[in-house]
């Protein structure tokens, strides 16, 4: 009867929704949503520009991001040769060792 009533236009569909929790998006997803270009890329561009302008040969990065270091060490990065010393300080020892 209920189903028939739906076709007879005397019936409608009712939704009841309860929002129980919300999980924050991962950092990468938040970057995509909030920053264009991604924040990690902006950080790298800022650092690269600063290194080139100041002719720095030493880099000290506090709480570095993996992405940043990968780019600095990457084969496509021209200013790799400019950096004679790169000092990494982070609470995540595992990440430090992995990318040293």
């Amino acid at each position, binding site marked *: *009867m*209920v*189903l*028939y*009533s*739906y*076709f007879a*236009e*005397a*019936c*409608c*569909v*009712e*939704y*009841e*929704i*309860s*929002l*129980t*929790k*919300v*999980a*924050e*998006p*991962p950092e*990468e*997803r*938040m970057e*995509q*949503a909030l920053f264009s270009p991604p924040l990690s890329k902006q950080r790298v561009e800022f650092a690269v520009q600063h290194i080139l302008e100041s002719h720095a040969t030493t880099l000290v990065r506090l709480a570095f991001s993996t992405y940043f270091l*990968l780019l600095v060490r*990457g*084969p*496509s990065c021209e200013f790799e040769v400019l950096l004679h010393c790169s000092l990494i300080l982070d609470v995540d020892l595992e990440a430090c060792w992995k990318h040293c």
Partner: protein
Amino acid sequence: MLLGKTPGGIYKLSREALLTAELPSRFTTRVNWRGSLPRDILCMFCRQHHLSEPLFSIISHPLKIPTESSKSCFKAAGLGTDVIECANGASVNGCPKQSDSGMFKCEIKLLSRCAEVILLCSPEDCYKKQNDAIQNASLKLLSWLNKYFNSVTAPFERLYETAGNFGIHVFSKNLFREIVIGQSIQNGHLYAMQCNKSLEPMCANSLQDMLVNGVCSLKIEGPDSGVCPCNGSLPCISYSVSLVVEGENMKEVIESCNEFEFEIGVGAVISFIEEVVMQMSVGQYAYFNTNLLTSDLIFASAGDSAIMLSLSSSELLSPVTLPLSTHTCTLFCKWLNC
């Protein structure tokens, strides 16, 4: 039902949420995806339509054109294992080593039963992970197919014309036409049953209550906790969907779930549900009515038993197999006897 033969239907079934879930338009990350993965849905789609398993090819960036050395082919042999066939003749098992700095594209070949290439999907998007490239390319192809299955009145030629926008090249138009036209004839029976009911009569007394598109009489209750979903977040909802007879005390729950997670901003649920959830904070309840669901989805959600209906009314045109709950089935049979 025929839902299991359409990309969107396969996804809905995998989430057990026919009246809530939608095939997302984007694949962001594996951890945010819920339900069957796009690649698995595509394989299922091919099996349902008696096609060969699709062929996935990974192309390493920055090479724009696939070469012998940069191209590996993944033939989906099943849901769990991959047999990787390299174009240069070598073959290995498991996933190839992933480069730290590489970017990947994926192209997919849809093959007929006789291994004839029906279409090639090669999106330009590059991804850091091979799996992301495979899932994104699969989803792109599924989304394109789904556009057609969602609108059976759209002519085949229109679908064909939009292929380029999705990075799709149809090699065998005739073979492909057989797949989609065959499906559209079957869907046509269900389409004929759609109510196309207007929201206006339902909201005639309270048009101001129609707060978001397709939703009528929206009420949000409970204190505002300040914890709201945002783009990219994963809200978890508890919900129920009921058929309600207006003016009478009749209500039947046709779908419910105590824990349903989805990603905001990728179209993972029916649009009006996401719009409502975006207005809520954790701990709040929302109630609303809608008439925008198609009757085939309502029937499919109505239960697990099935009856054969042969009606000749203007709305129910031809014999179709419909799953109905015992209660609804009894009521329906009574109505038929009258």
